[in-house]
């Protein structure tokens, strides 16, 4: 026969209070080794008490209390390993490039979509001049009509560093939105990729038609390769999410989504530092005539090659890791 509830609580409460205070100290981070053993013992006792209340006193406050207490202790004891700096290093050395190579199908599809948009925008403007009115923002059109690069004025209006930080946040927003839009069954990502491609293609084609191809490539060559790669990678991550939603395979949709989401976000997180770097290049180097075109083009090609070299080679074997690392830190 079970004890009456108040007597049961009175008898066992000392252990529960002790467990609670140990949990509080565990959170604060000043738990000693002996106390850790006590914590384990007390948790097992509380779990046994919880089973007891589930049978004899269901739906009471004592049941709710023990449930919560065991939940907190469970979370404290069965913790996943904490991510720290070594984990961050391992992520950039191995995890991120490997994930990218494993998901190259999605990144490839994303790149294809982007180039499709690029081609579409360029062809429309090249074949039908009035298409530019539809696809190119009016501000840019005005500049081009006067035969100037709109980017020439970025520097004269604002100092280069503010341009750099503004561009960095803008790129960040585009990247995050491109990825997160994958939640709309991939349609949003698709739209973002094609739309960005169409815009860039249309602006480029307009510049070529007006005989300003040199200015356009002068502006885009330094940061373009890496920046567009990053947006394509974020698009690939978004497509992964969309694919998990449309075709979850053997798993329930929710689980597939969580599983693929964790993989996809690695691609976005991995791109973040490169995005910040390329924002600096776009703000300082690309606009104006501070650097000659061949320097910009060389820099852009070098950065792009380093970036993709890192993505395709890093973490392949243990021997490769050490060889690729300097290249990684240099980019």
């Amino acid at each position, binding site marked *: 026969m079970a004890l009456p509830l108040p007597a049961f609580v009175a008898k066992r409460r000392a252990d529960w209070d002790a467990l609670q205070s140990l949990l509080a100290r565990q959170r604060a981070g000043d738990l000693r080794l002996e106390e850790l053993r006590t914590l384990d013992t007390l*948790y097992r006792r509380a*779990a046994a008490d919880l089973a007891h209340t589930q049978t004899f006193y269901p739906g009471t406050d004592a049941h709710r209390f023990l449930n919560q207490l065991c939940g907190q202790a469970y979370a404290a004891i069965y913790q996943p390993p904490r*991510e720290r700096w070594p984990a961050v290093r391992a992520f950039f050395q191995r995890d991120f490039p490997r994930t990218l190579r494993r998901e190259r199908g999605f990144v490839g599809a994303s790149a294809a979509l982007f180039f499709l948009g690029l081609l579409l925008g360029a062809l429309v403007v090249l074949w039908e001049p009035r298409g530019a009115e539809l696809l190119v923002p009016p501000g840019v059109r005005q500049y081009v009509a006067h035969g100037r690069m709109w980017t020439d004025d970025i520097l004269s209006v604002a100092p280069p560093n503010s341009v750099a930080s503004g561009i960095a946040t803008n790129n960040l927003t585009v990247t995050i939105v491109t990825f997160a839009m994958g939640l709309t069954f991939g349609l949003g990502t698709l739209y973002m990729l094609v739309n960005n491609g169409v815009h860039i293609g249309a602006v480029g084609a307009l510049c070529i038609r007006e005989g300003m191809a040199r200015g356009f490539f002068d502006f885009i060559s330094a940061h373009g390769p890496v920046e567009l790669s990053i947006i394509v990678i974020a698009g690939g991550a978004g497509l992964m999410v969309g694919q998990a939603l449309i075709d979850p395979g053997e798993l329930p949709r929710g689980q597939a989504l969580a599983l693929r989401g964790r993989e996809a976000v690695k691609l976005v997180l991995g791109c973040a530092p490169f995005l910040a770097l390329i924002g600096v290049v776009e703000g300082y180097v690309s606009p104006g005539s501070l650097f000659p075109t061949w320097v910009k083009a060389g820099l852009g090609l070098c950065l792009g090659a380093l970036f993709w070299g890192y993505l395709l080679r890093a973490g392949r074997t243990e021997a490769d890791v050490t060889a690729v690392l300097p290249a990684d830190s240099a980019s």
Partner: protein
Amino acid sequence: MSTASSPHLDVATPERVALTLPVAGIGYRCLAWLVDASLLFFFWIVAYFVFTLLVSDVLGVFQGLSGLGQTLLVVGVFATQWLYWTLAEVFFHGQTAGKRMLGIRVVRMDGSPVGLYESAVRNLCRAVDFLPMAYAAGCICMLLTRQHRRLGDLLAGTLLVREERIDLDKYTAAPAPSAVPPAAGDTRALTSEEVELVLAFLARAPGLSADVRQRLGARLVDRVGGLSGGEREAVLASPERLEAFLRARARAEG
């Protein structure tokens, strides 16, 4: 778990005890967000005023700021959008300041604390949950899913559980020594529902108006006491005697 219909998270532990954690609904989550958002807002207000107190020519300083300074500023603004949430959730066991105030916590679907990836995913997805404005997409998603998860939670495999403050003192509170409890008519053990009922009444009794207190008390005495005639009258004579009797009965000493 108080009622079968309220959403909850079932966790199977290696100790073979099933945990049932109550899930935080949309109300808790909105309130927690409001607290966090206003906290960030006031942080920037205070930062701005301190800054303007220290320097008079704000615009001039901004324009004269070095590249590093301006980059830091932009990073600071970005931090309030994303880093604040993620770092708080990773380092403070799934709780930002607002969530701590409301007593809710982000956990994985298996009840374990969130890691960096999960937290990063669910906070990056704020961008989508916020669409088209004021978290409309997130709120609709929370209303449609069984465990009140927004899109970011679905993608990260997380959800928010509620932590209640449960007072165990009511079980162990000693009866007032002044009122001597009379002997009960029968001494059958009360079921745990009856104990909960009596204890809930005792906890709320001081806040009830006098006649309601008397009426509810009398009904409880009739239900659990098994008294008749003179004994019942004696118990019902004053609220103090009545509650002392009920307390003793709940402690199974009657």
